[in-house]
């Protein structure tokens, strides 16, 4: 069972980092396209709590939470999105490509649906090498329309690979309701491939963690693919700067009621965690983010000569 306090801390870190990112973006310190997962933190925190160091994760364009939940360096993260040479990717990738291969974080991905077959390949590698590792593919409810999702689930099912597909169902695909784009009901769809699907409250980190732990445990013992559908909310625009004219303002109010962090906090308090502990956690998250930003700010800008010679392995490598 995932420790609720750890889940709380992970979510706090994601939230702090992303809200800071929003400010940095607004201030022009972060360029490019930035897709925040504010409101969806419980999914990243819960799923990644079920994983070990041998497991891997392929993420999406909305991938900060997954990366942070996998334990990437916050400084490396901020340095990356702030385009510094100390960034996880040397400033070459940015928000849509945050990756930490050492931590089994196979990258955010700018191509909707593209992470799924990559995770499939990671699961294939785990199985072929005889490990008990699993691979997770996060995907959005809109991404389900891509052909890659079907090819991936089919191959995972045929080969019984330890692939955990996690749908972050936030109801939106960019500026459209995903139900105007995707006819397939995820549960029925995965059942058609003989794959088990569970739906969880994606705003409840412990529920997500429990579902993921259950799936991963089965997979470590040889079970094939599983699908988790986590219903959650995208609090902000599709990307930073999105005026969200397509959105009913009432939705915001409804979303706030499902804040995964507030809920986690309340549950912890109910369970007797001292308020001070939570406040410490909050302060620590804030500090960690502030420290990381300060370090990233002080770092040198991305280095063109390094980039130029970084396309292929050095000769003789």
């Amino acid at each position, binding site marked *: 069972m995932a420790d609720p306090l750890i889940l709380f801390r992970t979510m706090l870190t994601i939230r702090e980092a992303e809200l800071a990112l929003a400010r940095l973006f607004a201030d022009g310190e972060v360029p490019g396209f930035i897709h925040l997962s504010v409101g969806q933190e419980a999914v990243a925190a819960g799923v990644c709590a079920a994983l070990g160091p041998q497991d891997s994760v392929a993420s999406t364009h909305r991938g900060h939470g997954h990366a942070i939940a996998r334990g990437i360096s916050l400084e490396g993260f901020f340095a990356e999105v702030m385009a*510094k040479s100390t960034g996880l990717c040397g400033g070459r990738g940015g928000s*849509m490509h945050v990756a930490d291969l050492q931590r089994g974080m196979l990258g955010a991905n700018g*191509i909707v649906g593209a992470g799924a077959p990559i995770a499939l390949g990671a699961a294939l590698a785990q199985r072929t090498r005889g490990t008990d590792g699993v691979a997770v593919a996060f995907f959005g409810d809109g991404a389900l329309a*891509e*052909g890659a999702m079907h090819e991936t689930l089919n191959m995972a099912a045929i080969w019984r690979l330890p692939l955990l597909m996690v749908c972050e169902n936030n109801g939106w695909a960019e500026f*459209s309701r995903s139900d105007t*784009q995707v006819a397939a009901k995820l549960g029925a769809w995965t059942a058609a491939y003989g794959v088990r699907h569970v739906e969880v409250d994606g705003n409840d980190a412990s529920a997500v963690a429990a579902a993921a732990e259950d799936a991963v445990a089965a997979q470590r013992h040889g079970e094939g693919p599983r699908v988790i559908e986590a219903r959650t909310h995208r609090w902000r625009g599709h990307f930073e700067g999105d005026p969200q004219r397509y959105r009913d303002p009432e939705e915001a109010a409804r979303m706030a009621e499902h804040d995964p962090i507030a809920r986690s906090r309340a549950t912890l308090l109910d369970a007797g965690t001292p308020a001070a502990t939570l406040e410490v956690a909050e302060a620590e998250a804030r500090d960690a983010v502030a420290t990381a930003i300060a370090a990233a700010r002080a770092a040198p800008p991305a280095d063109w000569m390094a980039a130029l010679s970084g396309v292929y392995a050095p000769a003789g490598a």
Partner: protein
Amino acid sequence: MAELRMVQAVNRALTESMTEDDTVILLGEDIGAAGGPFGATRGLQEKFGPDRVRDTPISEAGIIGAAVGAALSGLKPVAEIMFMDFITLAMDALVNQAAKARFMFGGQRGVPMVLRTPHGGGLSAGPQHSQCLEAWLCHIPGLKVVCPATPADAHALLRAAIADPDPVVMVENKALYAMKGEVDDAPAPLQIGRARVARPGRDATIVAYGAAVHWATEAATALARDSIEAEVIDLRSLQPWDEATVLESLARTHHLVIAQEAVEAFGVGAEIAARMADIGFDELDGPILRVGAPFTPVPFAKELESAYRPDAARIAAAVRRTLD
């Protein structure tokens, strides 16, 4: 005469074509209610309804495949792929179906569809949202490829593309969407395949397309300060491209530089250079130089991206080098 941004010129061309011809339909992700990620289709769904301006799922292969089927069935679909990087998902429909249908069905019918897609960097959009992949399409018999550098040409080329009986890809440089320019109220129709002399000159020829036309013009202005008069040719159409205009210019200037935003190696400029090293060989008084992006993915960081992207200085230097 109106002053329009390039994205508005695209919008106007779509509006006009859809008004004149009710077989023209639009397909793409968030092009309808949302008006398109760059606003190119703004207001069109209100005007023409959701059947003619159709918001699609995130299914690039399916979108282009459906456009092929619709085009074979009496419609003129204009599909949008949100970033040119995503055509990687739709190459079968484009290359194996749309491009070949007329030929492989023995001329029974063509595929009168248009694909609009933005390319290019400058937005820190990173390696998967910035590529210029037009050279791929130019290599495919059956496709036509155009790339406007001005609002007027965006309008005219799109009108021509929609009127064309064969599949045409219009590549739109996203850094130019906001660029303003005059668009005639009733411009003369433009023929695909005709280049434009963007700036006349006698000392060297710079061939460019898309955003590089502006860098080339800027380079020519700088060179003029040293009394080097470079002619800038805006190709506008990459497949077919206007060999005659380039050759004619080369025959006057005897020096050739080709500029593009795309990766230099195996890019569009290679074909222009190769062709001129054949049919224009006797005119050449210096090496043919190309200016394009280096052989790396498009980097995210602003500093990296500006080191990466070609510019006027590099073009001017190339002109000087070939004149040397």
